[in-house]
């Protein structure tokens, strides 16, 4: 009689080996280089893929179990939030605009990251990194879905949350995050990991998630806070992947160092520019402030990042080329970015406003060397005009940076009165940039960036009107036609917070008058 013997369970290390390396094989019908054509052309040399170490040693079976448990907790909180009308417990209806910025500008990036990691999770020859990238791909899809579900309760009560996917591909300011990811996804797999896993997730992600999530906590938004907790363990895994990838490349071949350094220079700068949106959110859009952008920069970038680049010095890596400029910008970029959205609020699906007196005092205190001199007089003037019924809307389309696609709003290092202009000539045309960092990126890969889909230029080319629009018709209003193409609810999604439907509704629900 046969006896069934229970098989001995594998230990963690063996199981990880079986579930990663054990899933790969040397192909025989086709040469390996044809099956994995993308992980050599960038010039990165890998001699031994088995040197890739995943510190988490997470395998798919354990992954499903952890994520399933987190999901249950998150959805219990989201349901409770909706049933208890949690939206009434937030500090102020202005806060919801931070969520609008998040669902339009950040959540679609989670989806882009999902696509990007699915791609590189197929393309690496080494199984360890392939499995890690595949898990991150699923994480990112999960983040996108759970963010949409977390914010869907707000969509029932507030404007500007209903159409984020459509906007992501069309609205001017969303070309900033969109082009960031399209640039990363059209690089090779090693550049993608340096861009997203290292430069963004490892170096800069705290500057993205902490302000939004602690902003949510301070402003009574428990559903978004819970989402943050649910994503946090994923984020730390993603950061580790970024660090592992960098060290792996640097240790495999000394020839990899200059390639990696150039990517770090590029992607630090692109990520920093993208974070301008977070900077303004932090300083202007949270009715209850957490910390200033400047303080966050000093803590997460200068202190942590400084230590990181000291640590990487032993591989021959130095701090990113634009580091000093980025540190100097901490006193300015939030104010400059808010001004841009205040200027062009007719074309953005969230509200802007001038901070109240207490908030202006907070900004003066947090920015003692710059705010009163450069930014307060402008805001007070705008408030006077708004109160006199003459609210400022800039009606002429701005000049954009060809690389980061942000309006050319940034000033020269050391002189906040002068816009920073840089330009390059390429194949008989001029290309313009907001900074040395963005110019360097273009100059290195001009063939790529001459294809930039710059919203302002696309509007002038006639590509941003609904089919059937006749721009030659009498009384044609191009701005109106563009907003129709955006499918924004004009007068509800856009314009100043003062007088908005959001403001009136929230006051009515809270029993206050406006």
């Amino acid at each position: 009689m046969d006896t069934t013997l229970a098989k001995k369970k594998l230990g963690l290390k063996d199981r990880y080996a079986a579930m990663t390396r054990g899933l790969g094989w040397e192909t025989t019908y086709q040469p390996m280089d044809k099956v994995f054509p993308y992980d050599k052309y960038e010039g990165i040399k890998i001699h031994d893929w088995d040197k890739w170490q995943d510190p988490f040693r997470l395998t798919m079976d354990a992954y499903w179990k952890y994520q399933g448990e987190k999901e249950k907790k998150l959805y219990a909180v989201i349901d409770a939030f909706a049933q208890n009308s949690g939206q009434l417990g937030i500090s102020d209806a202005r806060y919801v605009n931070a969520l609008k910025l998040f669902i339009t500008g950040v959540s679609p990036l989670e989806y882009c990251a999902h696509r990007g990691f699915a791609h590189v999770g197929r393309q690496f020859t080494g199984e360890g990194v392939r499995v890690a990238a595949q898990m991150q791909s699923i994480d990112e899809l999960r983040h996108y879905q759970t963010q949409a579900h977390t914010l869907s309760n707000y969509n029932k009560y507030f404007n500007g949350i209903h159409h984020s996917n459509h906007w992501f591909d069309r609205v001017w300011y969303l070309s900033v995050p969109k082009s960031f990811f399209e640039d990363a996804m059209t690089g090779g797999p090693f550049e993608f990991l340096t861009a997203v896993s290292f430069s963004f997730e490892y170096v800069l992600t705290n500057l993205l998630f902490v302000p939004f999530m602690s902003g949510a906590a301070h402003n009574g938004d428990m559903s978004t806070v819970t989402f943050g907790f649910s994503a946090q363990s994923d984020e730390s895994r993603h950061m580790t992947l970024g660090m592992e990838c960098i060290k792996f490349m640097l240790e495999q071949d000394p020839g990899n160092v200059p390639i990696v350094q150039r990517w770090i220079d590029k992607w630090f700068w692109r990520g920093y520019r993208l974070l301008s949106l977070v900077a303004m959110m932090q300083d202007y859009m949270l009715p209850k402030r957490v910390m200033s952008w400047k303080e966050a920069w000093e803590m997460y970038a200068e202190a942590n990042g400084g230590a990181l680049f000291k640590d990487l010095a032993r591989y021959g890596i130095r701090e990113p080329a634009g580091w000093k400029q980025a540190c100097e910008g901490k006193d300015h970029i939030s104010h400059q970015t808010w001004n841009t959205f205040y200027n062009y609020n007719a074309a953005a699906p969230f509200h802007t406003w001038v901070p109240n007196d207490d908030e202006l005092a907070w900004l003066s205190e947090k920015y003692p060397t710059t705010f009163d001199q450069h930014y307060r007089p402008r805001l007070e003037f705008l408030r006077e005009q708004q109160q006199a019924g003459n609210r400022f809307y800039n009606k002429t389309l701005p000049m954009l940076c060809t690389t980061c696609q942000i309006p050319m709003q940034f000033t020269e290092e050391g002189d906040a009165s002068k816009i920073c202009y840089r330009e390059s000539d390429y194949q008989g045309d001029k290309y313009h940039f907001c900074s040395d960092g963005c110019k360097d990126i273009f100059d290195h890969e001009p063939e790529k960036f001459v294809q930039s889909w710059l919203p302002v230029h696309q509007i002038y080319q006639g590509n941003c009107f609904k089919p059937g629009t006749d721009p030659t018709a009498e009384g044609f209003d191009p701005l109106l036609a563009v907003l129709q193409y955006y499918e924004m609810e004009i007068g509800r999604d856009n314009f100043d917070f003062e007088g908005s439907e959001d403001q009136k509704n929230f006051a009515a629900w809270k029993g206050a008058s406006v």
Partner: protein
Amino acid sequence: MSVTALAPYAFKPSDVRENFPAPLLYFGWEDHLLFCAPVCLPLPPDTPFGALASAVLPGVYGYHPDFAKIDWMQVEWFKSGKPWTPDPSKSLTDNGLKHKDVIRFRTPGLSGIKGSFS
């Protein structure tokens, strides 16, 4: 330098002159950052340069209290950041302006809201 790619990499630039009904020009008013960034405008190349001050820029910058105080005889012009003296009676083309050129102008004595360069 150029793109590292697996295959020949050549694509048409998105913003060449022929893609627009008129050439683009960029304008920036120095020391007036109430306007968050320079602006971009398509302008027919035969537009006289002098029409900028009388017909184009008022629509762009007229909101600012300094705009009405500009003495156009005193204005300093810059092309790609370098001092430049245009002829107001000549067209944009005859002043040497091409697609995607950037012009800045400085209005001496005017330094924005309460001297804040806004």
